[in-house]
């Protein structure tokens, strides 16, 4: 890239959908962190927990590689 190209390192991005999204858990994730990223509000973690009760027994125990359903906003 040429030196006179602008710096885009501070660009913020995001996405949302009317469909259920699938999120793959990575190390360091928690339902609160995912809710913050997906909904903009960490307190909405329970929506994700409720949508994934078939695979989650404890909201504090999620594992890297798990595929969580993220209900639409």
């Amino acid at each position, binding site marked *: *890239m040429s030196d006179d190209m602008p710096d*885009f390192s501070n660009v*913020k991005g995001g*996405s949302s*959908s*009317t469909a*259920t*999204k*699938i999120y793959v858990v990575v190390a360091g994730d928690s339902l609160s962190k995912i809710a913050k990223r997906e909904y903009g509000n960490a307190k909405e973690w329970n929506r994700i927990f409720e949508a994934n009760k078939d695979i989650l027994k404890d909201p504090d125990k999620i594992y890297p590689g798990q595929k969580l359903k993220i209900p639409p906003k």
Partner: protein
Amino acid sequence: METRILCALLVSTALVIAACGKKEEPKTSPAPAPAPSVQPAPAPAGVAVSSVTAGSAIGVDKKVTVPTDSFARSDTMYISVDTSGSGTAKLDAKWTYRKGNNVAVVKEDSMTINSTGPATHEFHVSKPDGWPAGDYEVEITLDGQSAGSRKLTVK
């Protein structure tokens, strides 16, 4: 005596000839089983992109409410993607900036969706200190295949 022998010989010869001439009934081979009808393969129940729209605002339905390809420096740029079909698919958005022959990647984002019918998805980007004026482009790919793009301008 010779006559009797001759007669017997003739009769037996006639019988043999008759037997040889008898036609065998043609064996009926079982009717060939009807060829299994070839059913057309069901259309893949995959997800397909039906439209890609750019704008500076979206509604709760993720559709663009202010469609435009031209943005102000402080705008958030949205791209709304309508899909049809059902299934799981990966949508990617790659935002780029072009200046002469140089191209810079502005942002890349992706989402995996599990769609059960028509749905709308959106990607957005913003820059706290404002967008440099110039030409931008966003390309949408669906499962790695290009599904549409929009050329954008910041003035």
